């Protein structure tokens, strides 16, 4: 056992009431009394709010007055306030690591119901900390430089805004988008609530700015495939899918498209949700960024099942002429970049309406999803803004069903937050375009947000019908003559208190938002966590909403949870700011919890070397001993636990410290 050096130990112990949060379930004064008698404790206090300024000043004052050389605070989770108190200790003139924190709120007062038991637990934990802190050593925080470049993953409105913010601050940004163009879901919307300004009008300027910005490297039609390293020094591998067009040479003149051997578009058009058609060579939508066409090898005659066969007349190549932008030989390209911080803005996917068969999506042609309707009412959409049903009719009555794939234990439990508002918007637009009678079927109308409720009022005045009730089913069997040939919704008008059958020509399903299908894979790649519903998990729901548990990786937009455009943009700005903080500081302080070899004891068995995930351990042939590169060590402690001769130690988690904690929680 290593004797601890600093001579006499004088510990100051503080237990926090946290208002009633702790005091209600833990008898703080009693714990303070108990600790006071423990060996090494110079003073022991209970106080209402330790994290408050007076609380911190109290610590500093005591350190000077009572010559404290160790401090223990029993309050909330160290993940919340360890840093606060370390600074306080430092301000008091002590090395910040002569401090240890006890979690008696999240782990005690909040989760137990018996005051006696909770108090005993608090005592045990406090004693463990007191015994542990005696072994603490003075440590220096390690500073690691930050690479100034940033990677933004996802080119929706979140990614676009984050990238622009950083680029305008003079930082180099890599923006990686999976689709052929940036813009994401917002580019598909017709108008945006509650202001009803057209999505394209406000989005496309930002898109072209991104495309033109000297600080932004835009890689569309590309995917991140590998992420190595850690905050400040990430190495990222990006796969650039072949679009069979040389981006630098293509001017976006689209001559190739008009001259394609296919005279008429005949393939389902993804951007228009399959409501429209495109050719094998195409540009997703008029304002696509980058303004570069691409070729779909699955349907282009020059390919067979994606393999080049070179059988087509290639009229497109002729049309392209001197530019020579078309390159059928193009292959997938792998790029490797170094960045210091990463912003994940991979967005959401809409709920698959087929999962609620009772609403007949995919069975009845006139049942649409909300996203389809966005395209249907859009002037540049497949019908040029004419609401023409799949069966060629114009609707005289329309039913909009809210909460499809939301607030439903059998599909997604959560409220998707945007459906109420976009349903109101679609109701307004459909009214405008068709003058049909419109019914909104909602469970609860949720319009929190600046001038959202006012928008609801507007709709009420427009004479849109609102029926509070979740639709039971959509069928095509008629009970009465006026129902013949219509879609019939059976629903309880819960406010009127009876059941109704309502015949309509068109049904719109307000599908909810859910995590991207590959969210789990992405999560693993970036080593971040997901909530139970599958959205990426923020570090703290209130105090660190855009940070993740992995330093240097931030979240923006709906990949973290359903949210509308204003919130998304705000969050994207926040994420960018967080990244800027690191970059402009230029370095990050790392917990000095690295491992080190006790040379005199190392037998040179090499068993630790393969264990290290960061290859921080090497073998010193000369000394025949293992050596640890502390710059590479991340402090997991796996090697420490595995060393057969016990000759590796970890700062902040020394064996003595942990053994004394074990002792502490078990005596008494």
């Amino acid at each position, binding site marked *: 056992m290593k004797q601890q050096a600093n001579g006499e130990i004088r510990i100051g112990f503080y237990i926090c009431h946290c208002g009633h949060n702790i005091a209600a379930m833990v008898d703080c004064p009693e714990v303070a009394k108990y600790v006071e008698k423990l*060996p090494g404790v110079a003073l022991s206090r209970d106080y209402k709010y330790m994290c408050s300024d007076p609380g911190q000043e109290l610590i500093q004052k005591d350190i000077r007055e009572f010559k404290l050389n160790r401090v223990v605070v029993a309050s909330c*989770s160290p993940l919340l306030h360890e840093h606060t108190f370390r600074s306080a200790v430092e301000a008091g003139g002590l090395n910040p690591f002569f401090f240890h924190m006890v979690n008696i709120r999240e782990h005690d007062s*909040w989760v*137990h119901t018996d005051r006696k038991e909770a108090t005993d*637990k608090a005592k045990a934990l406090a004693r463990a900390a007191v015994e542990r802190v005696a072994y603490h050593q003075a440590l220096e925080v390690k500073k690691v430089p930050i690479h100034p470049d940033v990677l933004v993953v996802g080119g929706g409105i979140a990614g676009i805004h984050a990238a622009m913010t950083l680029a305008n601050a003079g930082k180099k940004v890599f923006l990686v988008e999976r689709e052929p163009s940036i813009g994401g879901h917002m580019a598909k919307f017709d108008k945006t609530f509650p202001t009803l300004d057209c999505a394209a009008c406000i989005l496309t300027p930002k898109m072209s700015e991104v495309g033109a910005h000297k600080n932004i490297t835009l890689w569309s039609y590309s995917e991140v495939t590998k992420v190595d390293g850690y905050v400040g020094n990430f190495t990222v591998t990006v796969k650039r899918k072949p679009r069979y067009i040389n981006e630098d040479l293509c001017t976006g003149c689209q001559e190739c498209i008009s001259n394609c051997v296919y005279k008429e578009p005949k393939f389902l058009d993804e951007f228009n949700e399959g409501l429209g058609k495109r050719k094998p060579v195409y540009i997703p939508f008029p304002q696509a960024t980058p303004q570069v066409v691409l070729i779909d090898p699955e349907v282009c005659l020059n390919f067979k099942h994606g393999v080049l066969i070179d059988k087509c007349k290639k009229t497109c190549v002729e049309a392209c002429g001197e530019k020579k932008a078309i390159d059928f030989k193009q292959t997938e390209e792998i790029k490797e970049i170094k960045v210091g911080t990463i912003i994940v803005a991979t967005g959401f996917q809409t709920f698959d309406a087929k999962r609620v068969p009772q609403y007949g999506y995919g069975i009845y042609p006139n049942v649409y999803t909300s996203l389809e309707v966005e395209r249907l009412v859009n002037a540049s959409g497949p019908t040029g803004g004419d609401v023409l049903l799949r069966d060629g009719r114009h609707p005289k009555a329309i039913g909009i069903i809210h909460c499809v794939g939301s607030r439903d234990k059998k599909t997604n439990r959560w409220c998707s937050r945007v459906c109420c508002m976009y349903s109101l918007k679609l109701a307004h637009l459909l009214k405008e375009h068709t003058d049909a009678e419109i019914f909104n079927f909602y469970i609860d109308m949720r319009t929190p947000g600046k001038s959202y409720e006012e928008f609801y009022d507007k709709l009420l005045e427009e004479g849109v019908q609102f029926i509070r009730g979740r639709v039971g089913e959509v069928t095509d069997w008629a009970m009465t003559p006026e129902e013949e040939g219509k879609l019939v919704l059976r629903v309880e008008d819960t406010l009127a208190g009876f059941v109704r059958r309502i015949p309509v020509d068109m049904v719109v399903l307000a599908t909810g938002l859910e995590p991207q299908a590959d969210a789990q894979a992405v999560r*693993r790649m970036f080593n971040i*966590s997901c909530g139970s519903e599958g959205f990426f998990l923020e570090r703290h729901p209130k105090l660190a909403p855009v940070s993740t548990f992995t330093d240097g990786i931030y979240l923006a937009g709906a990949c973290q949870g359903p949210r509308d455009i204003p919130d998304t943009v705000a969050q994207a700005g926040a994420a960018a700011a967080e990244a800027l903080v690191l970059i402009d500081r230029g370095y990050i302080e790392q917990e000095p919890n690295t491992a080190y070899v006790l040379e005199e004891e190392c037998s040179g068995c090499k068993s630790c070397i393969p264990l290290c995930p960061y290859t921080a351990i090497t073998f010193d042939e000369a000394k025949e001993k293992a050596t640890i590169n502390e710059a590479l060590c991340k402090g997991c*402690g796996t090697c420490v636990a595995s060393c057969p001769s016990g000759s590796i130690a970890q700062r902040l988690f020394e064996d003595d410290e942990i053994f004394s904690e074990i002792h502490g*929680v*078990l005596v008494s």
Partner: protein
Amino acid sequence: MSSTTTKPTSPPAPAVVPWQPRIVAFFCNWCTYTAADLAGVSRLKYASNIRVIRLMCSGRVDPQFILDALARGADGVLIGGCHPGDCHYAEGNYKMLRRFQMLKRMLNDLGIEEQRVRLEWISAAEGEKVKRVVNEMVGQVQKLGRLGIPQKFEEWDKEMEHFAAQVAEKAATSPCACAAPEQPALATA
């Protein structure tokens, strides 16, 4: 490792059982400790018998910690780490798993029931699981009864002294496997 039951299993009512087992837990900083914080923030209620010691990674859990805890009077030990593939340090949890298997075998040889030590993968989002696992574990250990190794040690020590006296020769060393680490020089205030 974790059993998912469809019916809500009511937490074992401590009142029923005369004694409270003492359970030491080693939670990794990134997943399980955070999950326990989440359980707190969500005000979930679970048995208070558990004492959590925070480590950066389950990979840091040295089998000695577990043995030491049992030797000092713990009736059970719970280790919590990130789910396979989610480890903040890539693979610390795998390393722990490997060690854990060997440790279990060793405990069997020592005549200590396997169910007293438990390894669980609990992600930062699984506050509910912390509640479930702790309650299950407490119930399990309550069924097994007290382990009481320190008491055993005392008995053995007595026997040794007795034996020593008989052969009338000072027992220079006590064979006690794990003496407490000597405390540093302390001054009481």
